[in-house]
């Protein structure tokens, strides 16, 4: 069993990296490895609970389905339930004006100087995906 630290830089929609990172993390957990996931930069958006829009979405069903395919909040929570340790960088949250928004279950407030380096100290492998 190995411990892998994934540092994710991308958010949910800008590219497919976040999707890949979560699939990689899930595969590693399925294989019995330990996962640390650090959400940095735009990935820090993935730390927060969604705020459902109550009005008319103004989207066709096809467009809504396409956009929904990028939503990752459920998978983040599933990873945490499966044992992944997930921290986010509060500084990059601060820069985006979302520090203080409620976190998803299993996500903790963190920072590069402490959380990320602690992840590294216990890791066999560290990857940065952006």
């Amino acid at each position, binding site marked *: 069993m190995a411990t892998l630290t994934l540092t994710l830089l991308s958010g949910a929609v800008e590219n497919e990296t976040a999707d890949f990172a979560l699939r990689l993390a899930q595969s590693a957990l399925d294989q019995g490895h330990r996962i640390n996931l650090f959400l940095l930069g735009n990935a820090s958006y993935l730390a927060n609970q969604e705020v459902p829009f109550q009005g008319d979405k103004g989207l066709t069903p096809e467009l809504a389905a396409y956009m929904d395919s990028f939503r990752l909040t459920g998978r983040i929570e599933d990873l945490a339930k499966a044992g992944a340790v997930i921290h986010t960088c509060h500084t990059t949250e601060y820069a985006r004006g979302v520090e203080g928004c409620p976190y998803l279950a299993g996500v903790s407030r963190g920072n590069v100087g402490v959380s990320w380096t602690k992840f590294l100290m216990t890791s*066999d492998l560290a990857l940065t995906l952006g």
Partner: protein
Amino acid sequence: MINHLAIVIRHPWGNERAVLGLRTALAAQTGGFEASLVLLGEGVWNLTGARPAYLDKLFASFLENEGGLFCLESDLERRGLTAGELTLRPQTMDPDDLGELMAQADSINLF
């Protein structure tokens, strides 16, 4: 176990990725890891001109603690940059040297 991290920055400081790379390099160094910071491609623009005071402080702290700052000579040449124009002093290397540095690192992190 990870002892030596290579942090590779491929963007100028106007791109957040550059700042995140610099912050992680300094955090790794402060955390007791050996950290090598490589400014690759467009990343060499971080070596020129004025930078925000916060970034100057991060670079200074990293270098004062014997952090390795590297770039490819060819990346400077392609951009017409000469040593006299640089406001930071990296160790320049050729691609083979960079390959050796990457081979020595336990973790390579691209920003």
